[in-house]
């Protein structure tokens, strides 16, 4: 007593059950990411003119990550094709590349996240804004009444913006370009040693910093979870689950195909994410 069409396709639909299942699942995934993309559009269109940040992500790193994912999309197909041609050893080699690409993607993404979480915007009491990466914290850190004390000084490497920009609600990147154009040379990046007592606000570039970063972190984190989940399944089929190749090769090949379909979807989402977050 078995459920029909688990391995071989039903004649009138041309699909085996799992393939139909994954396509349906992907349809719902389209709606999930579609909702978040809509949110991106709505937030961006609804933002005040000039406030939506541009160019705060590292485009070369993002491009590299895009290449890594496209590469993995190719290998996941080649691996499946190798199984179809009954070449298990070749499948093993190629699919390993897929998993390594996924790993590389997550590592590069983590580096980008780290970069954002160590990137601070410090608003001084005199209205100046210092924007830069954290070099070190000095003093503080001891726990008093269960609360961690702030450091006495923080050292940042970055640039300084005049007090007027905050009042005007301007985005930093256009302002930086304007400063550079006016002075005719590269805006000075240097180290700032700031006393905590001189600041009114110290905030890093997390999702709380602005709605652009909020949607950036939400979209990319959800996407990264998909990468990790997809890679885990592909790896499981590649490694511990490979015993099935001996007992039921057709079904094993189907599994590789279905996980590959999911992987393509994950890549496709990134193909949309990259331009809207990094380039536009």
């Amino acid at each position, binding site marked *: *007593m*078995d*459920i*029909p*069409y*688990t*391995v*071989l396709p*039903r004649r009138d*639909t041309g*699909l085996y*059950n*799992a393939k*139909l*299942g994954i396509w*349906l*699942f992907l*349809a*719902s*995934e389209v*709606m*999930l*990411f*579609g*909702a*978040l993309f*809509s*949110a991106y559009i*709505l*937030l961006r269109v*609804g*933002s*005040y003119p000039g*406030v939506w940040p541009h160019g705060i992500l590292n485009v070369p790193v993002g491009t590299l990550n895009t290449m890594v994912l496209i590469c993995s999309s190719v290998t996941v197909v080649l691996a499946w094709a190798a199984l179809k041609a*009954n070449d298990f050893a070749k499948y093993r080699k190629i699919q390993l590349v897929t998993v390594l690409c996924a790993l590389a993607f997550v590592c590069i993404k983590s580096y980008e996240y780290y970069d954002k979480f160590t990137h601070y915007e410090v608003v001084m009491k005199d209205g100046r804004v210092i924007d830069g990466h954290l070099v070190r914290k000095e003093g503080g850190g001891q726990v008093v009444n269960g609360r961690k004390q702030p450091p006495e000084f923080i050292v940042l490497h970055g640039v300084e913006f005049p007090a007027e920009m905050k009042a005007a609600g301007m985005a930093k990147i256009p302002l930086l370009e304007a400063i550079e154009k006016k002075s005719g040379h590269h805006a000075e990046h240097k180290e700032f040693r700031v006393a905590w007592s001189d600041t009114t606000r110290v905030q890093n570039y*997390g*999702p*709380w*910093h*602005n*709605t652009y970063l*909020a*949607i950036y*972190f*939400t979209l990319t984190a*959800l996407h990264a979870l998909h990468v990790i989940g997809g890679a885990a399944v592909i790896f499981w089929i590649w490694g511990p689950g490979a015993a099935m190749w001996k007992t039921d*090769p*057709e079904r094993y090949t189907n599994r590789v195909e279905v996980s590959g379909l999911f992987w393509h979807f994950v890549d496709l989402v990134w193909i949309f994410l990259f331009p809207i977050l990094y380039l536009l």
Partner: protein
Amino acid sequence: MSHQAPAQSHAAHAHDSHHGGGHHDAGFWRTYIFSTDHKVIGIQYGVTSLLFLFFGFALMLAMRWQIAYPGKPMPVVGALLEGVLGPIAAGGVMTPDLYNTFGAMHGTIMVFLGVVPLGFAAFGNYLVPLQIGAIDMAFPRINMASFWSFLIGGMVMFVSFFIPGGAAQGGWTSYSPLATSIPTDGQTWWILAMVLIITSSLLGSVNFIATVIQLRAPGMTWMRMPFFTWAQFVTAFILLLAFPPLEAAAVMQLMDKVFHASFYLPTGLLIGGQLADISGGGSPLLWQHLFWFLAHPEVYVLILPAIGMVGEILANNTRKPLFGYRSLVYSVLAVGFISFIVWAHHMYLTGMGTRISTFFQTTTLIISIPSVIILTCLFLSLWGGSIRFNSAMLFALAFLPMFGIGGLTGLPLGFNFSDLLLHDSYYVIAHFHYVVAPGTIFALFAGVYFWFPKMSGRKMNEWLGKIHFAGSFVFMNLVFFPMFAQGVAGMSRRMSDGGVSYMLNDMTADVLGRLPKEVVEANIGISTAAFLLGVAQIPFIINFFWSIFRGEKVTSNNPWDATTLEWQTPTPPPHGNFDKPIKVYRGPYEYSVPGAARDYLPQNEPNRS
């Protein structure tokens, strides 16, 4: 490897169930708790959702006490609530915070943990594979995962009552920034529970669609599928595509709540008179769009399985084919499609603009066309039938006018100009409860009475069933009908004191914006009727448990002389469902065929040549 015999023939495998004895002694845990059998999962869903329905009803009763007698300690349960929930129920009195909690959770529980799991998941799981002649769902283990995800989500929702600050208070719609800025953790728990429930519904809907597409028995063409299966099929598509946007919305609200992002929080938001320490730039309308993108199709998720069940029961008990089977199928498909483009009729008052309002008003009125076709076909099915008035049929018959009232009173809400007056009033409460409570829940009761003999091998008691029906019918209407009048008189739906603070005591005062005394005092009658509605469910509860053990045993596998395949199985159906290979020869409702020996021809009965 590609030359394996195509051993996937359905008949061959169904036949194997005789020999596949290994599945029958899988042990207690695998058979009843962590089962992958669609029928056990259906019953698990059924029992869980009936419990949640009861719980949601109890929350409502507590609220009705507060509405009728604001500020007075609750009898009997007041001390209990204070003991369990602490200062939020101080002195056994329902505080506004507790009222908000119960209100939010009543809606959430009734919709997401009560009616949808009962109508779609419980009946769907049990019946869809049987009706299409399959031995199980396409993905039995995913089916099990769906139930457990649902159960854990329900538990998280339930446990959130007992965390400090209590459960969510932002209404079942959880509008931001209100829901985000309430300083308790209830909303966070609500979101987490919803994510689990959405996961469950996703797994379930993929399974249903794949099952219907892939596992139909030989001869079960699309136009031979029972109407209930069609309704489930469309419902599954709605769940598959409408729920993910709510999941996205919930994730963003979680980001707002936990990571202090500002997806839904506008610049310059004041909370308690203080400028909120947020980055701002978010859009409160975004939440409403994403929420209603799910929550309007969700209405059809609530109603379509119910309509499907009513169709089955009507055809069986009138002993004639459903009127306009094809029209019904196409109408259900049309409803499914159009349900995705009507959502913003919940948002006429948000200031989103008259053009958008006009668009959604138009689509809203368009969707009423297939809905009316469905209801008309069901009414016409009664014409000339020799009707058997058993409990199932009574509930199914009552569904028709109740759903009719619910639908027709929706029209003034669909027009944006009349909605401006009625929005957020008790009129809205009455309207959607007529659809869901006397409508859908009556259909669900009808389903329980109708399919109980197949699930248990015993019939439910008719006498108790009829008492249950009479009580439910009378008190449901006494509860909800006066609310139309209250709403038209301007009573807002979200007041924790039932409108007393707006009551007009003497006519010399300024009457503008005030409620006539009779309108407010109608609350006492409504609350009494609600309590009696609870009493009217006692015969059902007794009947349900008594009949499991002592009910009249069925003498055949097909006690209602029905045509569809779920009645052509042993009773109750074993693991694997059918004891013989199933092949379908005819449509689902061949009742009273001229010249036939009996007044029904089962779908798997071959044509006599």
